[in-house]
């Protein structure tokens, strides 16, 4: 047993496991920021009264949300990089990292858009009518009455999207980001097959440790911020 443990511990000297998780966290961080920006723009398009923008926003969401993330990643790698020879950086590893961020961003922006829109939909029509009744015009009504409530309603779905994004960052393997967790786990198991269970549990628990706090925080915030109606 002691032998097993010491040899298993030696694996961590050989492979950079925390470094792999750090790559996933970085992917998640950048993709979260960019998808929040793109998702907000899409949500604004979808709730605007302008039909052509509504249509474009809806088309984006329906296409990207129904495409598997793996297809998007593979498309970026084989079609955009290999076939169209579009490169995002001269550095090989950096190039793939950026492609992974792009893939994660375009995919999750569709879910961010829907999360924000569902937040807006939680605001009852009466709130807007009341705002107009006390004489607020469009911008003050949106800023003071509607958007604060909409944001509170969007916390839970946004948190769930963030969790999904963190887990989906492993799909960066499909664009050759070779330093992230799923690729490293595969390498480690393939050359140390007798530790297969221990290696899998290490990575799995790593993700549990990352995901559960986000989930708890989301639940806490969405309850704390929930508008009691």
């Amino acid at each position: 047993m002691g032998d097993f443990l010491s040899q298993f511990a030696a694996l961590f000297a050989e492979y950079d496991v925390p470094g792999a998780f750090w790559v996933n966290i970085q992917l998640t961080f950048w993709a979260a920021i960019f998808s929040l920006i793109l998702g907000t723009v899409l949500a604004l398009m979808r709730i605007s009264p302008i039909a052509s923008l509504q249509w474009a926003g809806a088309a984006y969401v329906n296409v990207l949300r129904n495409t598997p993330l793996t297809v998007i990643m593979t498309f970026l790698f084989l079609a955009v990089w290999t076939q169209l020879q579009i490169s995002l950086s001269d550095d090989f590893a950096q190039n793939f990292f950026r492609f992974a961020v792009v893939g994660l961003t375009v995919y999750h922006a569709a879910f961010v858009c829907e999360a924000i829109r569902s937040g807006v939909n939680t605001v009852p029509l009466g709130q807007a009518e009341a705002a107009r009744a006390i004489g607020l015009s469009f911008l003050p009504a949106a800023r003071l009455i509607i958007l604060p409530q909409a944001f509170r309603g969007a916390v839970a779905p946004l948190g769930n999207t963030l969790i999904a994004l963190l887990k989906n960052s492993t799909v960066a393997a499909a664009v050759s980001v070779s330093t992230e967790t799923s690729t490293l786990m595969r390498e480690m198991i393939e050359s140390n097959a007798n530790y297969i269970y221990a290696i899998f549990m290490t990575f799995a628990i790593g993700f549990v440790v990352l995901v559960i706090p986000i989930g708890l925080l989301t639940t806490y915030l969405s309850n704390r911020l929930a508008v009691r109606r």
Partner: protein
Amino acid sequence: MSTQKSVLFDAPGPRARRGIAIGNVVGAIVVAGIAALVLAELGRKGQLSWDLWGPIFTSSAWLDYFLPGLQNTLRAAAWAVVGAVVFGLVFGSGRLASSRTVRWISGVVVEFFRAVPVLLMMIFFWLLFGYNDVGDEPAFLAVVVALILYNGSVIAELVRSGVGNLPKGQSEAGLAIGLTGGQTLRSIQLPQALIAMLPALVSQLVVVLKDTALGQIIAYPELLRAAQTFGNGNSNNLQTLAVAAVIFIVINWALTALARWLSRYLSGRTSGGAAAGPGIGNPATPTGKGGPGNAIAATGDATAT
């Protein structure tokens, strides 16, 4: 959502209508302009030539690549869905059991498999089955098992919140006529909860179908892998992957439409209205009532994995 019912915008007057009409035209020009730019750029790089698109419209492309790939995708998805529903029912009722130990174990299992990325599980099971010579197709089994564990856990949460959203009177009535807690759950609560969660289940089917594409990474010959093999042979990956994406989009879009229809159809049919309430019938609206179960169900169809 339609503009008339929008909470942000009042019914437009003549001036606002003119503004909207102008915005509409400008928006349409911008959108069409972006599309034209992309097409022009693709054309400049020779990506619109028939040499690249032509191979897709041959019978061999479909009979040897796309259709067998699609068949493998659907086969894995079908097995995974059936398994996930069974897994979800077992662990969902486990979380509602009267025994504290059973509740705790079910809770740990469900929370664990919901937190671990599907791809990690797929790679793990693929290597495990491969080393131990389990079955003829370790990749297929790995895809199915990983999808069952993840989606089963999601369905377990749907079951839990579905039962939680039933009116309290349902379980009280069951207990009052002398059924045990387990009998009440099985014969009174679960049947109603299942009907109420049907739309969310169909939405989950979209997630399953999309995640079968992860099988590409472990060399399972599903639709994406088939498209890629075909594309490598003809050096037209852009075109073939686009076709694969369109197939996925059409199927998933149809499933989403089915889920929406089911939700509308069933909303008047389930007990007390609460069952078809926001948590399940209409996944776009968060319940705000709290509890992790509700938060999950609230985004049943918006889950990105």
